[in-house]
């Protein structure tokens, strides 16, 4: 295995552990927004899509790359916006009268 690949595995495992730890105690109220937010982050594949589209050699690869970019951008933009819309409603309300 190449050193880059091994380094990638190291990064992967460490990041996974961080992911496990960062989510340990979330109130059920926030499960939906959290899922939505995490889903937006998984749109990081947009980075791969840009690179794939940019370095595509040949028509098929370009089409696949652009399609990947469109898909990933829908995921990113839509994901963050919809999460924000959900969370906007959670903002501190003035305490109930009485």
């Amino acid at each position, binding site marked *: 295995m190449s050193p880059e690949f091994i380094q990638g595995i190291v990064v992967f495992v460490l990041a996974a552990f961080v992911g496990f730890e*960062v989510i340990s105690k979330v109130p059920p109220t926030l*499960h939906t927004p959290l899922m939505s937010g995490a889903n937006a982050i*998984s749109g990081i594949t947009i980075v791969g899509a840009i*690179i794939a589209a940019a370095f595509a*050699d040949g028509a098929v690869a370009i089409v*696949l790359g652009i399609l990947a970019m469109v898909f990933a*951008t829908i995921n990113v933009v839509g994901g*963050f916006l*919809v999460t924000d819309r959900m969370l906007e409603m959670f903002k501190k*309300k003035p305490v109930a009268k009485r």
Partner: protein
Amino acid sequence: MITLLYLLAGALFIVGLRGLGSPRTARRGNQIAATGMLLAIVVTVYWVYDHSPNDEGLSALWWVILVGLAIGGAIGALLALRVQMTAMPELVAAFNGFGGGASALVAFAAIVETGTVVATDVAYATETEVTVALSIAIGVVTFSGSFVAYGKLQGIITGRPVALPGGPFFNLILVLLMTAASVWAIVWNEPLGYWVLAGIALVLGVTGVIPIGGADMPVVISLLNSLSGVAASMAGFVIGNQGLIIAGALVGAAGFILTVQMSEAMNRSLANVLFAGFGTEGAGPIDAGDRPVNSATPEDVAISLNYAQNVLVVPGYGLAVAQAQHAVRDLATALEERDINVEYAIHPVAGRMPGHMNVLLAEADVPYDVLLDLDHSNPKFANTDVVLVVGANDVVNPSARDDSTSPIYGMPILEVDLAATTVVIKRSLSPGFAGIDNPLFYMPSTMMLFSDAKGAIENVTEALLDL
């Protein structure tokens, strides 16, 4: 330097995810994560510019990137801003499907022409080919699985579990076939193997999700979200990009923890959700037989509410479908003006996603501090005069507590039957997602108001104001 900036983006994702875990910091957390994403995109575009081979290719390249981002951004923004709050779960499923599909496409774009890693020009080593296969397999399963989940929640595909020939073994065989296709592609250097792999993965996404009932879709979407993270991470290995590996692994792990927490909220194991085909038996309309049902009018309900001191509202999916959250809020205001104490009992899986009800009620300006969770609601029912069950069913089914033969036995429920009077607003006696009968409907202390949630609540409010 580039790697360090990706690391910074990864750090912003981590801080953002942690912020999302607490009500006060959630919105900022999301914004921090979005900032991380923007950073990652800008860094990538710069990197592409820096590494582009020649000048005349450059302008075409910008067009490709610009057009891709603009189209995707416009579609995403349009969907996100126009969706009804009630349709949130299926929209998350759809977004997730796009993300998984993108990861698979990245892997395809990388191998389709040359058999070398596009970005680095290094000939494929076996380990990279393995990540290509994983990226395609996981990405495509996420893609088709998410859209089946979307279809189930939208009602395009039946929400009931669909039994497969051979049950889980059917899918096991598909997984074995996918492994064989991958070996064919990698060991024999046969690119066709990747396409076969994608074809089978497309089927597996469908057959993996379709046997699962609509009520369990939130768990499935969460799991698919976790998978799309893993797919992104694998795509990162394919093109040698650490930013992708970090963020993908992060979401993969975080999404998995969230999935387990959701299953636990339903008192079931993840394996049980995925393979049990919950509610396959006993489907179809339930025959009420000759059991007596107290059918009430809005006036009857208004009168009992008027003489109550403590009222607990139990919202469910029916409230979401009917968009009744504002009507409920109006009724609560009318009751509060009569010095009647109104609180809301929220079951963790009420609606179609954990937290779904909180989102809807927050939209209707219901204050956060009158929303009670399961543990705080259940001790209150015995001292509650009137419980108003609005379009909820399985989460208030006493069978889960009393009947050890019931398929939902052991699931935590809101014990609304302990209250002096329980009003159930529901269109009919038909069963909920679990497909089982609810003895609550036939109890002497239960009044059934057969109507859609919004109309019923409005009529009750009107009747109350007329008293």
